[in-house]
Every structure is written in structure tokens, then in C-alpha cells.
């Protein structure tokens, strides 16, 4: 990659950080942080709200040149979650727990996250977690006999976990499928429009970059069931970088990985692990804290890098 390409990518990422809802970058104890600016947004937890954490794309088992120690950076991410004050109520893992279903990866992540001192950890799978066996191992460990999609309520917020990595077809984009869409429509049908909704899934539900498969084929149909709600927050992984978009009452966020970065959309011949200078790697990996305060339409999203 030429220096010119590198500059363009940095400029692009810089621009992306400022699009949509307005992320404010600052330094807190030497740690670069981004937070949604606006009156009192950062004080959500003191307003009777709560906080939760998002971790994504841990890719345990990855040993490529982009990060020979994905286990080490995963453990560094856990210390970031443990350091959150006040503690998050729970953690959501948005998939690619394992790198290509490497043996032992599910156990490693499940045991480690169970030790960070939160009430519960919720999972959705990435394609790396299901490609080899159609999801049999993932579902047996994480879905308690279900199909992997799930919903729950926490202190007035309705959370929906969706699965868009099953049954990939040649030349086609990932999708949710009719069965899951029907379930989603029924799941939210009885909720009043004032209920805050948080949707999480691995592959972005919005069209980040379809040429690289960074979209869910029937994501728009799912979002159609949520348009009537006054506050919808969509959390995704898969692309290993922070991007944000706002459409009406819907705010979309993609998260960093804890394992390796990927190129900005269209920067380079294709997606995949991106090797950066050693000193820059941890600055491109991280975890996320999401803060909810009753009465505020948008949740505050705070991304913390590992360096």
C-alpha cells in the first residue's frame, strides 16, 4: 500500500468520525476516547439509566501477521471492560468470537467474559463461528436450543439480537431470512413506540459497503419493523472499525475488533486483516460502552481503544 493510500484512508476515517451523530474525541488518562456530545449525554448512568459494553470480533485462534497475539489483545480488552466505572450491567458480543471455529476458542471467550463481573453476556454469531458446521456448535453452546436470535428487556429498553450469518449462498449477501424476520415482526408488535430499542447483529444491517459484503441483504425489511419507534440503536461488528450513521430515529454503529483492523471501505483490493505498524495496532482495536438515560432519544456510545 502506498503512502498516498494510507493518507487517504486516515483522512477518510477522520471524516467518518465526524459524520452522523457527532463523536467527540478526547483524551482521558492518555486513552483516546470518543463520545456522543450533547448536554449531559455522558452522565447517563447517574440519571437512573444504565450502561452496557459491546465487544466484537475477538477472532480467538487468529495468528496471522496482522496480530500474532489476538489472545493477548482480547485480554487487554477485558481489562478495559473491567475498568469501566460504574460497571456495565452486561456485555454484548457481536460475533466472530472464534477465528474460523478454531478448537477451544468458544470456551476461551465464554470463560474469560464470565469473569469480568457483569450480570450476563449475550452473544450473536459471526460467520467465523458457524461456517464449518452450519452453526451446530455455536447454537449448542450459546443458544440454549434456540436458533440464535433473541430478545430481552432491561430497565425499559428492548434488546434484540439478530443472526445474519447462516446459510451463505454463492455470490449472495448474508441475510436474516423469512423465519427470523417473521419472529422480529411479532417480537416488537406489541411494544409502544416510545420503547427504546437496541438491535445487535454481526454483519451491519445497513449498507456500509455491499461490494465487500458489508451489508445484510434483507436488513432494510428488519429496520422497517422498527421505524415507528422513537429511539433505535443498531450495534454491529464484522468490519473491525468504527462507523456511524443516523437515519431519522435510527442510529447505526459498527465496532472495533479486539483482534485486527480491516481497511476502510474500498481502500485496497478487498477486506480482510490489515497489517499496520506494531505501534499502531492497539490504537485500532478496542471495546465500547453504551449508556442509556431515560428520556434521551440517543444512547451515548463511547469507544475506547486498547492503546
Amino acid at each position, binding site marked *: 500500500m502506498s503512502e498516498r493510500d494510507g493518507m487517504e484512508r486516515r483522512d477518510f476515517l477522520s471524516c467518518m468520525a465526524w459524520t452522523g451523530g457527532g463523536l467527540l474525541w478526547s483524551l482521558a488518562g492518555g486513552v483516546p476516547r470518543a463520545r456522543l456530545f450533547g448536554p449531559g449525554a455522558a452522565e447517563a448512568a447517574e440519571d437512573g439509566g444504565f450502561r452496557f459494553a459491546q465487544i466484537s470480533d475477538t477472532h480467538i485462534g487468529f495468528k*496471522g*501477521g*496482522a496480530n500474532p497475539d489476538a489472545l493477548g489483545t482480547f485480554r487487554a480488552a477485558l481489562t478495559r471492560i473491567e475498568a469501566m466505572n460504574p460497571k456495565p450491567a452486561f456485555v454484548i458480543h457481536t460475533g466472530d468470537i472464534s*477465528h*474460523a*471455529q478454531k478448537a477451544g476458542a468458544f470456551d476461551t471467550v465464554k470463560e474469560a467474559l464470565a469473569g469480568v463481573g457483569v450480570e450476563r453476556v449475550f452473544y450473536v454469531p459471526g*460467520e*467465523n463461528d458457524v*461456517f*464449518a458446521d452450519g452453526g451446530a456448535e455455536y447454537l449448542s453452546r450459546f443458544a440454549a436450543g434456540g436458533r440464535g436470535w433473541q430478545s430481552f428487556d432491561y430497565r425499559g429498553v428492548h434488546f434484540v439480537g439478530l443472526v445474519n450469518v447462516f446459510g*451463505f*449462498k*454463492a*455470490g*449472495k*449477501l*448474508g441475510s436474516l431470512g423469512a423465519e427470523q424476520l417473521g419472529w422480529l415482526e411479532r417480537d416488537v408488535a406489541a411494544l409502544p413506540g416510545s420503547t427504546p430499542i437496541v438491535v445487535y447483529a454481526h454483519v451491519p444491517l445497513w449498507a456500509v459497503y455491499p*461490494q*465487500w*459484503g458489508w451489508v445484510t441483504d434483507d436488513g432494510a425489511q428488519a429496520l422497517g419493523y422498527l421505524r415507528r419507534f422513537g429511539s433505535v440503536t443498531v450495534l454491529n461488528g464484522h468490519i473491525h472499525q468504527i462507523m456511524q450513521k443516523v437515519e431519522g430515529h435510527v442510529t447505526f454503529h459498527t465496532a472495533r475488533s479486539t483482534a485486527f483492523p480491516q481497511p476502510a471501505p474500498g481502500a*485496497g*483490493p*478487498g*477486506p*480482510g*486483516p490489515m*497489517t499496520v505498524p506494531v505501534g499502531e495496532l492497539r490504537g485500532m482495536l478496542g471495546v465500547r460502552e453504551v449508556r442509556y438515560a431515560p428520556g434521551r432519544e440517543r444512547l451515548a456510545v463511547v469507544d475506547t481503544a486498547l492503546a
Partner: protein
Amino acid sequence: MRIPITTMLVTTMTALLLVGPARAPAQMDTARVEIQAHGFSTPTLTVKPGTTVTWTNRDDDVHTVTSVANRFRSPGLDTGETFSYTFTQPGTYEYFCTLHPLMTGTVVVTPVRSGS
């Protein structure tokens, strides 16, 4: 000493079977496809029946080589790992990566023309 004519015939026919033109289709052909930058280096590869195609993953990511019609299916291939399949029958074989389904390829196996 006279050699019975039947013995001579059998000997000659055996020799023909061993070295004659009937051996040509059994010749081992090979072809290679590189997996790089989330793509297959030869998206459409044309080979003769009996050709063994070997895919090599040059990416930092895991990929698979999976037949759309379920004829062959590699495990997840890490960097540097290979997968081979021998195409014995003429036809068109479409395949893709089950991790990155926009990565697609085709192997076309052309019939061997008589006399060639």
C-alpha cells in the same frame, strides 16, 4: 523353436495395452488457483478431465473452496494451506468461499475430443 501364434498375439496385444494410445487420458494434469485479496486468481479455469486442481490460500484470512452443487468442500484453509480436487467428469463446477460468499469461481471441465 516355434512359438505358437496365439501366444504371439497375446504378447503383442498386451504390449499395445501398455504403451498404446489408450494410456493418454490417464495422464495426470494439474492446475493451480491462488486465493488472494479475497478472490480467486483464475475465476474461470478450463481443464481436461482428470485434472487435479490445487487451491492455495495466500491471504491472512481463512477461506474455503466449496462446491455450489456439493461436489467438494474444503475445510477452512489458513494462510499457506492447500486443497486439491480431481475433476474426472466434463461439466461446469461453480464454487465459493462459505466465509465470504462474494468470492466465487468456476472450473469448466471440457470433454476430450476423439482423436486428440
